[in-house]
C-alpha cells in the first residue's frame, strides 16, 4: 500500500470543473454496434430504500414522459429514462420485506431464513465477469451510511454478492478514494512500494498455507476466499499504478462522527457519487454500485425528514413527509445522472452515453409491499442508439424485477441469461417485454 498519507495525496488533487474533459479510458475500443444497438460500456447500479409512496407513477403525455411530483427532480433527463411501473420484488413474506427485498433485489435469490444472505451472485457481478476485462477493479461497491444505525451488519444492508458471498459497500468516500487512487507517485516510489508489498505478501501467503492446512473444509474455503482477495489486491495495485487520472475529488475531513451522523448524509452521498463517477471516468472499474442507506435505515436528513427516521416515515409518515423523502432520493438520482452527463469526451459524448444506470429499490413502499417496485433505467447509449427504449413509461403487470435485470444483462451481451437466482417461474424469466428498442 502507498506510504503516502491521505492528507498529502488529497492536497495534491485539484478540483476540476464538472464540464472538463475526462481522461482517456484504458481500453478505448468501444464495442461495435450489434443487433441494432450500441452496448453500454459501464454499469452503475443505484439503490434507494423503501421504494416510492403511492402516486409516484408518471404519465405519458403526447408521447413524452410527464414525471409528476415524485420524479420531478429528474425532469432534465426524462428523455433518457425508461421508467417501469408494476414490477414485483422477490419478496414472499411481507414482514420480511427488508431482508428478502435486499437479498433478492439484484440476485433473484430467495432466502430460507430471515437473516440469511443470498446464495447467488448479483447481476452486476455477472455483468462484471463479462465486461471487467483488464480494469484494475472488477467492480466497486460504494455506500452512504449503509452500516450505521438500524440494519447495520444485517442482510438488509447488503445488495451485491459475488459467487463467493456478500460484497458489503464501503461507506467512507475518502477511504474509497484512497483505495482507488492512493498510490505512490514517482516511478521509484512505485518500485519501492511494489517490492515492499511483495515481501509482505510472501509472509502472508506462507501463513495462509499453514493455517489452511490446519483447518477443516469450512475454514479452508474461507481461507481460499482470503487468498482470492489477496490476488485481486495484487492485480489491482499493479493495474492502478498504470492509471493516470486527474480526478475531481473535493477532500472533506470525515471523522467517525461525520461518517455516522444523519446530518452528513447529503454530503456523503455527493462525495460517493463523485468517487463513483471518477472511477468510471478514469477506467478504474466498469461496474459501480451506489447504495444509499439500507432497507431499515433510520437516517434523519436535514430539510427532508428532520424529526423521524427514513424507515419510520416511509412506514407511517404523512403523504407530504413521504413525498419529501421520495423527491430527495429522486434528486440524488438526478445528481448522479448530472455528474455522468457532465463528464464529456472531445466529441461531445458523455459518460452517461456509455454508462447504463439501473436504479431501483427493494420494495414498493415502506409498508413492505412488493408491487410496484420503482425501477428506472437511464443512459447507456446516445439517445436512440441503445438497447432500452427510453423517454417513456413502461407499465407491466406482475412481472418480477429480475426480468428488467436480465434485460440489462442482454444489453451487455449476456444474451444467454434467462433467469437469475432462484426466480425461475414464467413471471421472472427472460428479458422484460417492451423494455427494449430492438428485441421483440
Amino acid at each position, binding site marked *: *500500500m502507498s*506510504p503516502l498519507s491521505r492528507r498529502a495525496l488529497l492536497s495534491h488533487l485539484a478540483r476540476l470543473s464538472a464540464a472538463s474533459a475526462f481522461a482517456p479510458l484504458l481500453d478505448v475500443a468501444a464495442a461495435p454496434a450489434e443487433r441494432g444497438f450500441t452496448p453500454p460500456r459501464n454499469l452503475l447500479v443505484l439503490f434507494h430504500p423503501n421504494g416510492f409512496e403511492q402516486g409516484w407513477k408518471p404519465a405519458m403525455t403526447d408521447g413524452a414522459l410527464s414525471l409528476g411530483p415524485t420524479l420531478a427532480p429528474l425532469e432534465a433527463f426524462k428523455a433518457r429514462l425508461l421508467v417501469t411501473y408494476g414490477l414485483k420484488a422477490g419478496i414472499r413474506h*411481507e*414482514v*420480511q420485506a427488508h431482508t428478502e427485498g435486499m437479498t433478492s433485489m439484484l440476485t433473484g435469490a430467495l432466502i430460507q431464513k*430471515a*437473516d440469511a*444472505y443470498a446464495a447467488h451472485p448479483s447481476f452486476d457481478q455477472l455483468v462484471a465477469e463479462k465486461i471487467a476485462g483488464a480494469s484494475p477493479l472488477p467492480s466497486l*461497491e460504494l455506500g452512504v451510511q449503509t*452500516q450505521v*444505525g438500524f440494519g*447495520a*451488519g444485517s442482510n438488509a444492508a447488503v445488495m451485491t454478492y*459475488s459467487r463467493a*458471498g456478500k*460484497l*458489503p*459497500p464501503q461507506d467512507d468516500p475518502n*477511504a474509497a478514494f*484512497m*483505495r482507488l487512487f492512493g498510490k505512490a507517485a514517482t516511478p521509484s516510489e512505485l518500485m519501492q512500494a511494489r*517490492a*515492499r508489498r511483495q*515481501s*509482505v505478501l*510472501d*509472509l*502472508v501467503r*506462507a*501463513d*495462509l498455507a*499453514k*493455517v489452511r492446512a*490446519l*483447518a*477443516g*473444509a*469450512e*475454514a479452508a474455503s*474461507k*481461507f*481460499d476466499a*482470503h487468498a482470492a*482477495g*489477496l490476488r*485481486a*489486491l495484487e492485480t*489491482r495495485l499493479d493495474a492502478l499504478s498504470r492509471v493516470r487520472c486527474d480526478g475531481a475529488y473535493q477532500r472533506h475531513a470525515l471523522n*467517525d462522527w461525520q*461518517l*455516522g451522523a444523519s446530518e452528513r448524509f447529503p454530503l456523503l452521498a455527493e462525495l460517493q457519487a463523485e468517487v463513483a463517477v471518477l472511477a468510471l471516468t478514469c477506467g478504474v472499474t466498469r461496474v459501480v454500485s451506489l447504495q444509499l442507506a439500507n432497507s431499515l435505515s*433510520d437516517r*434523519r436528513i436535514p430539510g427532508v425528514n*428532520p*424529526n*423521524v427516521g427514513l424507515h*419510520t416515515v416511509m412506514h*407511517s409518515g404523512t403523504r407530504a413527509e413521504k413525498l419529501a423523502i421520495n423527491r430527495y432520493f429522486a434528486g440524488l438520482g438526478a445528481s448522479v445522472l448530472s455528474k455522468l452527463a457532465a463528464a464529456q469526451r472531445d466529441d461531445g459524448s458523455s459518460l452517461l452515453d456509455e454508462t447504463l444506470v439501473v436504479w431501483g429499490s427493494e420494495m414498493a413502499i415502506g*409498508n*413492505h409491499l412488493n408491487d410496484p417496485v420503482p425501477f428506472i433505467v437511464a443512459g447507456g447509449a446516445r439517445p436512440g442508439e441503445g438497447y432500452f427504449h427510453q423517454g417513456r413509461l413502461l407499465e407491466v403487470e406482475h412481472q418480477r424485477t429480475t426480468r428488467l435485470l436480465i434485460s440489462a444483462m442482454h444489453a451487455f451481451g449476456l444474451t444467454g441469461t434467462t433467469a437469475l437466482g432462484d426466480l425461475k417461474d414464467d413471471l421472472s424469466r427472460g428479458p422484460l417485454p417492451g423494455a427494449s428498442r430492438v428485441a421483440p
Partner: protein
Amino acid sequence: MWAFLRSTVRVAASPRGGHAFPMLRMMGLWALVATASGCEAPEVLAPLRLGAQPAIAAPSGAAVPAPLRRLTRQQHHRSVLALFPTHGLTDTPGLRFPADETAGPFLTNVRQPVAPLQVDLYAAAAADLAARVTAAPADVERLVAGCNRFRGDEFCGTTALHRLARRAWRRPLDEAEQAALTSLYQQGAAGGGGLRGGLALGIEALLSSPSFLYLVEPGEPTSGGRLELTGFALASRLSFFLWNEGPDDALLDAAERGELDTAEGLAAQAWRLLKDERAAPQLGRFHLEWLGLGGLDTLEKDTRRYPFFTQETRDALKAETLDFVDTVLRRSDGRLETLLSAPFTLAREPALRVYGVDPPMRFTPGLPVGLDPAQRAGLLTQPAWLAAQANPATTSPVHRGLFVVTNLLCIPLGSPPPGVDVTPIGVDPTGQKTRRQLVERHTSDPACAGCHRLIDPIGLVFERYDAVGAWRTSDLDDRQPIDTRVTITTGSDLDGPVDDPVTLVRKLARSQRVKDCAVRQWYRFALGRQETAEDEVELATLTARFRASDGHVPDLLVALVTSDAFRTRLP
C-alpha cells in the same frame, strides 16, 4: 466488593474427550431449538412447558463443525491496542471496517467468507498501523524497549518482531516463520530503512496475516472424534471470550507451560481474566447485545417530542447499563436475579433526567442512586432497553414483548403468516381507541393470536414506560390511563396474572426459564456461534449448574470455560 471472588471454584475435573454427545438425541431440551417454526401454528408451543417436555428426536445428519471466526471490528481494534500499549493509540482502522455479522444477538464473523474489499482494508490497516507505531524515533524506541542496544539494531529489531508475533498470532512461531520474519526485517532495514524500516515492514506483515485476523484453532484428535484444542488455541478462546482481545503474555506463558490443559488451570486463568478491568467492557458488551442495545449509539427519537434525546443522553443511557452490569457482576453478588431486579442505578445526569430524578445532594457520578422500587427494577426497567425497544415517538408493546420472548425466554418464533397487515401499531387517527385496544386486534385475530398471545401481554405491561423509558400514567397520544393488567401465557414459569411491570420483571428475575435461556445466550457468546444439536448435552450440564448456583454469572462463565464444548471442537 469482589463478592464473586469468594465463591468457591467448583471445577468438575471432567475427563477430556470421549464424552457422550450422541446422548443429545434423548434430551428434551432440544425442543427449544426444534420449535422454531411459524406463528400460525399455536400448537408448536406445547412442548415448551418446562418439566414436562416430551423428548423430540434431534434431526439426524452429520455433526456440524464450528465455523471459522474472523475478528470483529472491536476484536481487531482492541488486539491492536494490546499489541502496542505504550503508543497512545486510541483510534484504529479496525473500528471502521464494514459492520460485523451476528449469530443470534451477538456480533461474530462466522457466516460469510471475507469480501475482497475487506482484504484490501486489512492490508491498508496493517500498513497504516505499522507506519503509526514507527512514526517517531520515540515510537521505535518503545518497540525495542528493554533490549540491550549494544547488541545492535538487527538483534533488537528482530527480537521485538518475534515477541510481537507471538502476541499477534497468539502462538509460538516455528523456525521457518522466525527466519522469514528476520528476513523481512532485513529487507525493511536495507537501503537506509534502519531499525524503523525493518520493524515497520515486519509489523505490517504480522497484522496482514491470517493468524492475526482469524481464530485458528488447531487441536489433537481424541477418541470421541473431537479435537482437543491446544493450549494456545484455548488461550485465544478464553481471552476473546472474557476480554474481546488476544491473550496477554501471562496467558500465553500459561499455555506454553501446559497449564491450560487442565480444568483447574483454565479456571484459574478465567478468574484472573474476570478480575482484570479488561473484563468489564466485555461483560457489558454481552448485555448490550443480549438486550438489543447494539444500535443505541445512533438510536433516533422524534426530536419534537423528545428534544433532550441527544448524543449526550444516548451516551449516558449506555453508560448507565454498562456501569450497572459491571457493578452487579464484578463488585456485588454477581447474580442474574440482581441484574434483573435491583432498584438502583449508577446513572449520570442526563439519564437521571429520564428517570425524573434530581441528582441527590452531594451527587457523585458513578455511585449508586436508589430508585422508586415500585417503578424500577434492574436492566429491563432502564431507559436504554426501554428506549431501544420502542418507536421514535411512541412505545412498541410488540417489540418489547417479542424481545422478552425471544431473547430472555429463548422461545424462537417464526414470522407472521403471509398476507397479514404488518403495519406497525401507530396512534388511532379517530382517537377512539387506546394503544392497548389497537394492540388487542392481534389476539382477537386467530391468524395472529398464536404468537401474539405470548408477545403482547408482556409488551403491554411495559406500557408504563414511554418511548424513552420515562415512567408515565397516561399515554400522551390517547390521554387515557394506562392499564397494565395482563395474564401471561408463554408455557413457562412466567405464566399467570401480572398487574405492573415491576412484578413482571421480578418474576423474570426469579424464573428458571430465564436462567436457562441466559445460559444458552452466554454459550453462544462464548463460542461465537449458534449452538447445534451436539451442544445440548453440555448446555444441560451448564444449566443445571447455573440453577444450583442460584444464577451466579461469573461461576457460569468459569464453568463454561472448563466445559468440553469450550475445550474441544469438531474437526
